[in-house]
């Protein structure tokens, strides 16, 4: 397989893709770095020259920074907890032999195929609308006052939407992990006198451990950059401004490209720390 000729042929053939991807990544990255050190106000004079670390300091010391970090953490952690816990339960359920298994599995996976913008619109208009939404009708059917979701419970609403989107991913990964568990191990545990819950705790859960870490890390990277769900629903109002959304607002609303770029660089560093862990774990997974 790996003669010298085939290796250099492989290199040549892969080169266009690698160069394209590298360019796609490097050009915006360098531009972000460049802008982050400039005082760049498009509507107020344009590029006003070199700014040193001013943008970085301003981004960190701004009064919206820590609340944004807090909101981001709340969203990421809540969504992770909800998707992992429900994902494990759903995976255990879907692993049971039942009638219509194939269709049920497709239904469970379906939300993952819906674009974030579309799913946010669906939730906003179909479920959470205080007048015509399904939730409103449900509340009214029981005689309760409908909740104005995106105003009174904005953060939980967004967590709900994002969780709904990521639950299929977690379920899918955990289901395949569950299915890779050797059935003889479960039988051995059964013969060893472990009842159902203990078999889950001592055998199934440790077996799912690695899959759970992979789910957590991959989801963390993607949920950190949650944007469409917030843009479509609350536009960052009612304490739903995450770090990503703050960067967006600095650039479009405040028209301060330098400041937004500095925030972008912070986000890059944060995502890379997570990615580093992810690659280590996924790499280890592939070795085993």
């Amino acid at each position, binding site marked *: 397989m790996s003669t010298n000729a085939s290796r250099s042929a492989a290199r040549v053939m892969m080169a266009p893709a690698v160069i394209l991807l590298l360019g796609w990544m490097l050009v915006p990255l360098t531009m972000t770095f460049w802008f982050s050190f400039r005082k760049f106000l498009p509507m107020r004079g344009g590029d006003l020259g070199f700014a040193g670390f001013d943008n970085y300091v301003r981004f960190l010391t701004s009064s919206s920074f820590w609340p944004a970090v807090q909101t981001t953490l709340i969203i990421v952690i809540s969504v992770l907890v909800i998707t992992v816990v429900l994902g494990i339960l759903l995976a255990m359920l879907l692993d049971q032999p039942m009638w219509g298994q194939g269709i049920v599995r497709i239904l469970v996976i379906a939300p993952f195929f819906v674009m974030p913008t579309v799913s946010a619109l669906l939730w906003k208009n179909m479920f959470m609308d205080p007048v015509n939404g399904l939730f409103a009708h449900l509340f009214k059917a029981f005689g309760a006052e409908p909740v104005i979701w995106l105003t009174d419970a904005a953060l939980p609403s967004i967590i709900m939407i994002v969780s709904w989107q990521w639950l299929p991913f977690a379920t899918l990964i955990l289901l395949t992990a569950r299915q890779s568990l*050797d059935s*003889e191990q479960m039988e*051995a545990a059964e013969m*060893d006198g472990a*009842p159902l819950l203990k078999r889950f705790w001592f055998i199934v859960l440790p077996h799912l451990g690695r899959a759970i870490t992979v789910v957590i890390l991959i989801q963390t990277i993607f949920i950190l950059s949650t944007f469409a769900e917030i843009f479509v629903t609350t536009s960052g109002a009612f304490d739903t401004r995450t770090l990503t959304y703050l960067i967006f607002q600095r650039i479009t609303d405040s028209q301060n490209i330098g400041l937004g770029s500095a925030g972008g660089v912070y986000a890059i560093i944060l995502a890379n720390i997570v990615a580093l862990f992810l690659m280590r774990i996924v790499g280890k997974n592939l070795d085993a």
Partner: protein
Amino acid sequence: MGRIVLDQVNKSFDGVEVIPPLDLTIEDGEFTVFVGPSGCGKSTLLRLIAGLEDVTGGQIHIDGKDSTQLAPAKRKLAMVFQSYALYPHMSVRNNIAFPLKMAKLGRDKINSKVMAAAEVLNLTDYLERRPGLLSGGQRQRVAIGRAIVREPKAFLFDEPLSNLDAALRVEMRLEIGELHKRLATTMVYVTHDQVEAMTMADRIVVLKAGNIEQVGSPLELYSKPKNVFVAGFIGSPSMNLLEGPEAVKLGAKTIGIRPEHLSISDQEGVWSGIIGVSEHLGSDTFFHVKCDAFPEPITVRASGEVSLHYGEKVFLTPNHAHLHLFSDDGLRIA
């Protein structure tokens, strides 16, 4: 203690009968081997005894108690699986201790039992390792250790040696035999390898398509096979089963003669033939001889080195005391 009685036990999967109603008694302390070709239902039978499968009909009595509807853990049997089924995320110590922890034994008691089992199985140096770092034979021993700490009424082995290489298999065979002698506990062992069955068993149960073909001690099966199937299955290399006019002359449909009960000579004999392939094992030589009287080649054993070669004409003489005769329906006549 560990007497297992199967009474009219049968099993169907989706209406397909895998095991027709079957009676069998496994005496206390006996080493019983279920042997048969793959798909003969021997593993299913073991799993029925273990309780991992529900019987379709019939009853299973363990230690004089009707255990047919009992959960596997309540039957007080221990099983060693083909894949060992060790818990990969637990150390050897925790693997062996697992059934004891589930039985809610005290910490000191668990420790002393684990140490005792580790001592018996030479695992003391590996107690803190994960199963993934052990060799096949060591994993096998951990699986056995996990079984013996429970002090079960009987051990069930499901093809435990089939994942080991040949040398290790012989070694583990002796170790399991040794263990049985020391513990004197009932053992039920499933294998498709008749050599394992012959070397380890007190009693062999030969199965074919879920039916018991014959039950008996290894030598009984060897010297008095009840039918053609058992005759051909037990013994290595297998018995020559011959049909044709020569068989009819002796009043049988099929005659069976083991390779070691034929003598070969280049001078004189009853059946003449031509030597085909010969296998030289050092202690023995096996010749495959194409005889004029029979369509199939006949395997003959000669002790030591014999200077006969491919294509040479030879004569075979059966030892009539060891000739097996089978009737039209495959049953033994004499």
